């Protein structure tokens, strides 16, 4: 195994794992998809990867969402978790709120949000990598942010009402 693979793994794996966890909500599935993305990258060859980080995100996301069955299981797990408990400081609750809100978005919105804000990819890069029409990226992102905002406000109001 070359030094390049170790370097890529140590650089990209933590970020990829967190992105896939945010998208799917299932730590085991995220781990599996992240590992599989690296296996596929290795099979493809490092020299053939355009932007390895973004490539791994695309492949990992596809791997994560490959079966509807998986998605249903993940949805159930998130549903079972219920709303976040307001036990800690607001900042922590806000983060949990945000992640829970993210998981309420449709699959495509979830992926685009993570790609844009966590990976910092441009609209054009997201369109190209995820095979989405470029005009759709902005609209998808806008809808996702609006929805996240609504969910977040609703969560804060609910917590405020319980105090």
């Amino acid at each position: 195994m070359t030094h390049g693979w170790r370097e890529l793994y140590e650089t990209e794996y933590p970020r990829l794992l967190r992105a896939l966890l945010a998208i799917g909500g299932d730590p085991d599935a995220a781990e599996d998809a992240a590992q599989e993305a690296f296996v596929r990258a290795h099979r493809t060859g490092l020299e053939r990867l355009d932007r390895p980080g973004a490539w791994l995100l695309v492949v990992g996301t596809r791997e994560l969402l490959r079966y509807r069955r998986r998605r249903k299981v993940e949805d159930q797990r998130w549903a079972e978790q219920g709303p976040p408990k307001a036990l800690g400081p607001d900042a922590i609750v806000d983060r949990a709120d945000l992640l829970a809100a993210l998981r309420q978005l449709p699959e495509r919105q979830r992926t685009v949000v993570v790609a844009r804000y966590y990976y910092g990819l441009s609209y054009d890069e997201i369109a190209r990598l995820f095979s989405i029409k470029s005009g759709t990226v902005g609209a998808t992102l806008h809808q996702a942010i609006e929805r996240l905002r609504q969910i977040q406000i609703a969560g804060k109001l609910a917590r405020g009402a319980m105090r």
Partner: protein
Amino acid sequence: MTDRRNDDEVLGRALSRAIETQEPSEKPYERSRIATCPERRGLVLWQVAGVAAALVFAVAIGSWCTRPTAAGPVAASPSATASAPTATSAPASSVPGGGSTVRTFFVRDSLPPLSVRIAAAVSDPSRPENSIGSRLSATYGAPASAVPFGAANPLSLVGRSGNQGTFGVSVGIAGDTANVELDVPLGWNIHGAAQVQALVQQLVYVITEEPGIRKARITEKGKTNAVIDGLVVDKTLSREDVTDYDHIGSTKAVQGFGDATTAASRKLRPILNVDTIAPVLARFVVETDLEVSSPGVSYPDFKVEMRQLDDPSPREIPGKWSLVVTVNGQDQGFFDQSLSFPVYQAIDKSPVRGILTTKQGTNTVYQIGLDDLRPWRTAIAFRPFRIIVDIGGDPRTIFDDSNAVYAPGYGAAVARTFQVSGVAHNFEAHVDIRVLDDKQKEVYRGGTTATSCCDPGGTFDTTVQLPASVTGNIYLEVFEASAKDGSDTKVIRIPLTVR
């Protein structure tokens, strides 16, 4: 930046921080799959057929594996085991019963499964439980020579440990669902997500091949689910659930409107190519005797639509789905008076099972029996006028139901001069093409015009000639520059190597 956009960025940054502060259990590099199992990675899926060929086992699926059950799987008897390696050159023929063949499926990396017929024995084929069990049994014991080049048979690995192999099946039917209970006392012997997915895909395709069966529920003996290398399979799955394509085929009809007044004089000649235009692509062409030169001139009405085949009622065409091509004109067999309609022609080259040709008034209807509901797209071409229906193709070079590239193939080695072909539904039929080198520097920019724009689409075929300085890894991008703002749309990106 507006306040709203600023707010969006703030929320985005907060979300990014929230994602970053998650604390998943991270696996160090030393324990990662690429570090610990490089040899398995090479074997994961596509070389397993060779391994399976080297191992010969007695596969005692036997009597209980096809035992019919009225409602759900019955408790499997442990008698369906065999441990000592036994010399048998034709595992399928070792199954009790008379000799015949059954259709089964083998899987391919990143491509849809491949259907082939293999030797099998079915003790009572009138019972679907028996047929499913026999099909699984035959697939499990299929010799490596039965597995087509480039395909694999992950089912053949199930339940093997060292030089022993044990695998049992119990089948029950409930409506359109087959409940299949697998007995694997020595473990699944399936490793990695890719191999698990390949196995599940193969099982679902093999099980649902039975007429009347659309879904499969796979469980382990004594459990309500199957846990294969950590992946929980606990839902009923259809072929559409396990497809390699990003989307399944559209059931929305595509229509071409021409001129119905002179239909009787139109002679139609059907042509089918499978795997010749491009790998995994079936192209069905209806060629007319009309020398139509452009879309503005009249051509026959036609309609293309995907229909689910209505089994288990008696079927005139085999397969799970049928692509129905209706054209205003008469098949050449009508003119030649050599054929008595309806005519069925067996093809049996995956994904096409056969073509049934019938007459309906002034129309000819071609029904193409298919393995599954894979994506398809249409195009028209001229001189003579042709209706082109493309079924499937490499999932990695398909953008949607309208745009796809067929050549060069994904990951192919090309000369500096190579052909680019495909189907496009673009504004004014324009297709943009560029080539990037491994540093993402553009080394070629060009374009071509498809045979027709918009719906029902056109085909394109052009030559790309790269400068002599271009070597190594390159990326071909076929796309449409947006008529609205010039941005790249419908981008299909294909990695290539200049040889």
